[in-house]
């Protein structure tokens, strides 16, 4: 149990690749932090610097109140779960779990006790005498978890621990990891490129892009107020629609569609507008709306994803499964659900329209959507 402070940390590989650039994260004791980002954005590199498997080029990593830059991985009081599990193939499950404790001179009786406890927590008791190659992927994954748990370290580090499992097992293991972490209260850093995994596990999300932090925040905060077009398109599924718009005063034009923002004018001129597919809905009778030309539909069961074009820009709407569809549909969106981003930097502009206090009636009034065509 400890805090982890990552202070202005950079990684420059020999050959000049800067994989991580001036990253700052302060992790509270017991917090579950998820590093998320596309492949090659430096997630693993950052995690491995915390673990001590990679030299820290610049900056400092502090675990508890100790700077660990020059501390041996074995002395950092962390445990790591690897993507391919990295179990010792020549040892039984019991020996795998006990290895770290044995090397730390833990008394035999205590080792047995702790291994038994971990095995019970992870339902590994029937497999203790087996070698890893005689286990299924999910069981191996649990052994890898167990190896981390028995040590009772100050922090858990996970590098995409679930990405080798099938979809169903991934969901259940995800729950199990969350449950264990809650129960043990161990500070954790978890790396994934799966935004759903990130959303469900994290106390706080760290979205990385090209070695730099794009945004840190609670999952819902990141979802509702993405700091940039990058975050907007990365977090949430389907990805947020990003379309070109034009703002004149409080009037927003997206292709042929016009929106009135009721006095809200965060910028002026061309900008990027973000619309979440799930915020779009079929316009009610008499409501201001815009027309979406339907290209094709993806049925997900719980909803249908309607892909179409607004003017000449692609747009996706997530609609209830029973929605009737034609060649074109009339859609509406509450104006407080619109996101604005600067065209050049991709950074967010303003915090969006304040959400109305009493929904329905006021929402309709607050931003009047004007169909233009």
């Amino acid at each position, binding site marked *: 149990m400890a805090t982890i402070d990552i202070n202005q940390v950079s990684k420059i590989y020999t050959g000049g690749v800067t994989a991580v650039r001036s990253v700052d994260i302060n992790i509270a004791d017991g917090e579950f932090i998820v590093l998320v980002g596309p492949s090659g954005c430096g997630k693993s590199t950052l995690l491995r610097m915390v673990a001590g498997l990679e030299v820290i080029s610049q900056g400092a990593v502090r675990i508890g109140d100790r700077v660990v830059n020059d501390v041996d991985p074995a002395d950092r009081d*962390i445990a790591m779960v690897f993507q391919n599990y990295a179990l010792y193939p*020549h040892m039984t499950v019991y020996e795998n779990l006990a*290895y*770290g404790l044995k090397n730390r001179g833990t008394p035999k009786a205590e080792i047995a006790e702790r291994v038994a406890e971990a095995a019970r927590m992870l339902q590994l008791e029937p497999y203790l005498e087996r070698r890893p190659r005689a286990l299924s992927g999910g069981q191996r994954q649990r052994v890898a978890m167990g190896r981390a748990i028995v040590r009772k370290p100050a922090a858990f580090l996970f590098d995409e621990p679930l990405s080798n499992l099938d979809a169903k097992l991934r969901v259940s293991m995800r729950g199990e990891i969350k449950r264990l972490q809650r129960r043990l209260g161990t500070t954790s850093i978890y790396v994934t490129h799966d935004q759903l995994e990130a959303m469900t596990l994290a106390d706080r999300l760290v979205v990385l892009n090209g070695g730099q932090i794009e945004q840190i925040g609670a999952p819902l905060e990141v979802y509702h107020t993405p700091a940039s077009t990058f975050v907007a398109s990365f977090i949430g599924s389907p990805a947020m629609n990003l379309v070109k718009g034009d703002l004149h005063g409080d009037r927003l034009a997206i292709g042929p569609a016009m929106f009135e923002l009721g006095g809200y004018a965060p910028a002026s001129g061309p900008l990027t507008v973000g619309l979440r597919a799930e915020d779009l809905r079929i316009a009610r009778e008499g409501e201001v709306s815009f027309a979406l030309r339907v290209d094709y539909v993806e049925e997900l069961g719980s909803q249908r994803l309607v892909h179409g074009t607004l003017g000449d820009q692609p747009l996706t709407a997530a609609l209830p499964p029973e929605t009737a569809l034609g060649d074109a549909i009339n859609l509406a969106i509450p104006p407080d659900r619109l996101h604005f981003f600067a065209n050049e930097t991709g950074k967010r502009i303003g915090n969006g329209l304040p959400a109305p206090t009493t929904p329905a009636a006021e929402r309709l009034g607050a931003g009047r959507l004007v169909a233009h065509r």
Partner: protein
Amino acid sequence: MKRVQFSSPYLPYVFLAPQLAVIVIFFYWPSVQAIQSSFYLEDPFGFGSTFVGLSNYADAFASAEYGRIARFTVVFTGLVTFFSLSLGLLLAVKADAVIRGNAAYKTLLISVYTIAPPVAGLIGMMFFDQHIGPFVKIAAFFGWEMKVGLNYVDTAFAMVVVAVWKQIPYNFIFFLSGLQSVPVSVREAAAIDCRSGFRRFWTVVLPLLAPTAFFLLVINITYSLFDTFGIIDVMVKDKAANNPITLVYKVYMDGFRGNDIGGSSAQSVILMVVVFVLTILQFRFIERRVHYT
């Protein structure tokens, strides 16, 4: 593994035929001949042969000289196997630490070692050359007047050194690729679990290297028994009398110098049996303790 479909069921046998022919002609046929002639006493001048039953074997076992050579062979094999394995491993571990993740460097290093053994053997012999051998000069500097080919102990020493020297590259290559195939993440997991690098090596890396080591053990014993023939031949320079030789060399001496084809055949059959038994023992008892991942 990829399954290949042949258009004719006989085609695979056609492909196998050359290999099978080589094995039969150069391995089974001479073996059968050796077994057969070990029961006969051949006339030294080639005028026929007489069936003598097991007396060739009895002669070999009764001979004090044969016993002495057998004991030397055991010691020689033990020393050569031990030193060439441990030095090969040591060098591989050191090289592995340097070239980890550097594929180009690895290929370069290995390619150098691949062409090395015959050359290394030659250089090794030159080390002990009576006139120009630097090893002999160094020994002389320390007051050890080396007489390779004349003095029993000196010759034995030189034979072991050159035999080890020649085999190290081979072991090095196998150990190095064995080390490189230990997954990086397993090493990293061990680095987090265990502070001492030496202990990590003993408890994680070495057990994972066991299949390689076992394979090399078999190869090295066979090498010490048979493939050192050339080295011995150069060192004893046909003056086998008071020089150390191994059983294989005695087979050659008796058969081709002494023209005792029957006795020589009996000895080679004994060797064949020894190797056969050794191989079975190795696979039975050692392989069981080896973890194939």
